[in-house]
């Protein structure tokens, strides 16, 4: 039985970048570099957590974010697979989009004369209301 070397990811446990972000970035990078292809199966959350010696919840969070970005798709008990449109979806950076939208909104508030502390308080209130805190 030939042992084919599959794609490997590497995590720096002492890096300032959160572990789940490192996982997300590396999986997206692997998709962009075509090291994993649409339809390829990914390891289970538990297998990856065991191999990287990290908590299951960290890997689950990374998988959740990748699923939200349509880079991977969970198919119940069959496992998790690379999304058919993963290559295109990898280029969509939701964080960048959020920053851009917020910059525009804050700019219009400032133009209207709203102070930074008022914006901060209002932002925190709205954020807390929306998450039900």
């Amino acid at each position, binding site marked *: 039985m030939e042992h084919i070397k599959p794609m490997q990811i590497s995590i*720096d446990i002492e890096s300032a970048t959160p572990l789940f972000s490192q996982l997300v970035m590396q999986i997206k990078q692997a998709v962009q570099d075509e090291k994993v292809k649409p339809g390829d199966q990914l390891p289970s959350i538990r297998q990856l957590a065991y191999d990287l010696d990290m908590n299951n919840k960290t890997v689950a969070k990374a998988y959740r974010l990748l699923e939200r970005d349509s880079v991977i798709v969970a198919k119940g008990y069959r496992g998790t697979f690379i999304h058919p449109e993963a290559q295109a979806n990898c280029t969509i950076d939701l964080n960048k989009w959020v920053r851009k939208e917020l910059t525009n909104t804050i700019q219009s508030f400032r133009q209207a004369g709203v102070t930074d502390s008022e914006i901060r308080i209002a932002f925190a209130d709205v954020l807390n209301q929306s998450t039900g805190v």
Partner: protein
Amino acid sequence: MNEMTLFMLVFVTQIFLLSAYFPSRILRRSQYVLENYPASTHPKLYPKSSQYFKRAMTLYKWVNIFNMMLGLALLYFIYTGYLVGEKGLNPMLPWGYFMLQMIPSQLLEFFGMRLAKLMKQQDQRRQKSAQLKPRKLTDYVSAKLLAAVILSYFGFILIGLYLEGFVISSESKTLVMSGILLIGMLFFIGMSRWLIRGRVKDPYQSEHSRHKSVSMVIKTFCYTIIACSGFMLVALLVVTFDLKTIMPIIMSLFLQLLVILSMGFMLHNNCIEDIDFDVYKSA
């Protein structure tokens, strides 16, 4: 040659194979590792000094020597008739002794797990890596071997039922034995799953070495199940044709076969030269 003489000959091979031959091969292997990959060049291999390693091997050696002496004592008591009842020798005697002979191997296993735990605790590397691919049973054993395991199980049931005239009842020995075999199979499936998907024991072990060792362990599980199906069938034949007096001989031969298929297979195929020891060198 009567059955008792034949049993004694077979039992002598059990004593020497399991308490002398295989242990000496394991000890030679350990000695080779100590000499060629010492703590000075491969510190990660010895998380608790090489003395600890040597002590474990000494313990292993003496438990085996004790087992061998015990085996020879049992042989003497069989020869003098002290252990032979009216119905002949108890077929469970070779099995009971086999369980004792397996204690040193369990000690080694326990020692290996303890070493791996210490290795993990001392692992200072910042980088952790993993493969982005799910591991499956068929990555480790061929589909043919898995099919052979299933065929041997159902083959046993079919032949067993044939011997019993296809009478299915709660007293059917075939059904009871197939139940025991099924429990054994489920145990091996659980163990294989744990080996394939479970936590990495040795944090430094290269992916290739891990793949190879897991593959070999699962193959030995498969061979063991096939051998057990064969043994169960022979046991059924012994009962059917009332050959109970040869049962201790068959039992001892079967246990020796099991060890050859597991320990012998591992020692023969997992050559020490093929193991990547560079991963244990100081960074």
